[in-house]
C-alpha cells in the first residue's frame, strides 16, 4: 500500500500552520518531526504513560492516541506553548523548588495534565491530585514531590484569588 497523505491546517501554540502529513502519523510525531517541538515525549505509544500529553481544543489528551489528521482545524498547545505564555511558570518554579523532576522525561506531561487542575483552581485534596495525575507515569520521583509541587501551586493560586 502506498503512503496515504492528507493536507491539514491547525493552530500550534497560537501559530497557524498547514502541512501535508501521512494519515497514519500520530500527533506527537507530527509535533516533534514536522514542527520541531520536542517537548512532547513518547514513552509507550499505547496510551499508558502520559508522557505525550498535549492540549487539543482546551482538553488534555494523549498525543500518541490521536492522528495528526484528526487535529485538522484544532488548536494544539504543547508544553512549549504553555511555557511561552507563562501559564505554568509558577508550577515550573515549584517543580524546581520541590525537586519534582529527575530525568525529566515525564515532566512535560505532568505539567500539562496538572495545568487542567490549575486553570480554574478549586480546593482539592492530595488524593484528588493523585487521581488527576494517575494516568501519568514517573519512573524517578516516586510522585510525592510532584504532588507537593502541584499542591503548592494550587494553594498559592487559591490564596491570590
Amino acid at each position, binding site marked *: *500500500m502506498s503512503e496515504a497523505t492528507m493536507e491539514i491546517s491547525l493552530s500550534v501554540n497560537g501559530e497557524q500552520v498547514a502541512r501535508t502529513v501521512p*494519515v*497514519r502519523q500520530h500527533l506527537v510525531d507530527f509535533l516533534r518531526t514536522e514542527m520541531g517541538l520536542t517537548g512532547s515525549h513518547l514513552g509507550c505509544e499505547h496510551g499508558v504513560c502520559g508522557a505525550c500529553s498535549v492540549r487539543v481544543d482546551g482538553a488534555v489528551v*494523549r498525543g500518541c492516541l490521536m*492522528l495528526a489528521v*484528526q487535529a485538522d482545524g484544532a488548536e494544539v498547545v504543547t508544553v512549549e506553548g504553555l511555557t511561552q505564555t507563562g501559564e505554568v511558570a509558577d508550577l515550573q518554579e515549584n517543580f524546581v523548588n520541590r525537586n519534582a523532576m529527575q530525568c525529566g522525561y515525564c515532566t512535560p506531561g505532568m505539567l500539562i495534565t496538572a495545568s487542567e487542575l490549575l486553570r480554574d483552581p478549586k480546593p482539592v485534596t492530595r488524593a484528588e491530585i493523585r487521581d488527576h495525575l*494517575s494516568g501519568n507515569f514517573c519512573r524517578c520521583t516516586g510522585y510525592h514531590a510532584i504532588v507537593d509541587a502541584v499542591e503548592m501551586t494550587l494553594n498559592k493560586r487559591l490564596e491570590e484569588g
Partner: protein
Amino acid sequence: MKAPKFNYVKAESRSHALQLLDELGEDGRIIAGGQSLMPTLNMRLSQPDTLIDINKIPDLGGITLDGNIVRIGALTRHVEVANSPVVAEHLPLIAEAMPHVAHHAVRNRGTIGGSVALADPAAEMPACVLALGGTMVVESVNGSREIAAEDYFHGLYETARETNELLVELRIPAKKTGDISVFMELAQRHGDYAMAGLACVARINGNAFEGLRLVYFGSEDKPTLASKAVSAVIGQAWSEECKEAATKALEDDLDPMANLQGSSAMKLHLQKVLTGRALDTAIERAEAA
C-alpha cells in the same frame, strides 16, 4: 511502535459513515475516540485497510432525557458522561462507575459508544448498560434496529453488531424512585481496567432485597448477570448467613478467566468479597434514602 499504513476517510454525516461501512465491509474500521483502537494500531495488533473517522459527525453525541429513558449518543465522550447532571440524577450507577474508566486524558477523548462497541470484558460501561437493562441502537444502510443488552454482548470483544452497522445510541431506563445502585471495582492502579468488579441495581424493602441485578466484569469473557447469587438473596432478610450463601452461590455463576492480573481462583475470591461489600452498601444506601 508506529501504526501500519492505512487509508483514512472523515465521515461527514451518519449516512456517509453508513455508506462507507457498507462499501468497505471488513476493510473498513470505525475510529471514535481512538483510545482503544490507536494502541492496537501503534502496536500493529490490528491492520485495517481504511479508517472511517466518525468524530466530525454532528448528531452522534449528547445526552437527553426522553420520558423515562436516558438517550446517550455513541460519540459522547466519557468526560461528558462523567459531568452530566442528567446522568448524575437519572443514571447514578453510571455516574459512580465513570471515574473508574481510564484516566483523565483518556476520558477527554474516549467515547461511551466506543466502549460498548469494543466490549472489553473488563470495561465498566458494558457492565452498567447490562445491569440497567439498556438497549443499543445500531444503524446500517438497511435501516436501524435495537438490541437489548442481554442479547448484545456475545463474548470476548464480540457483540451482536454487524460489520456494516454503526452504533448510534444507547437507551437506558432512568432510575425509578426507590432503586438503589452500587458500583465497585478493584484495579491495580486507579483508572486501569478492572481485575474484578460489579454493577448492582437493587430494590430493597426493609432489610430484604426484593429485586436485584448483579453484573460482574473483569472475570468472564463478557459482562455477566449472576442468577444463582441473586436467588440466594431475594426475599431473605440480609444477614451474614445470607451473604455467605450468596457468595457461595456465586461459585456457580462465575468461572473467571485467568490473566496477567490474577488466577481464576483469585478473581473469584475478589468477586465474592466485592459482592459482600456491594450488598452491604446497597442496604446502607436504602436505609439512608
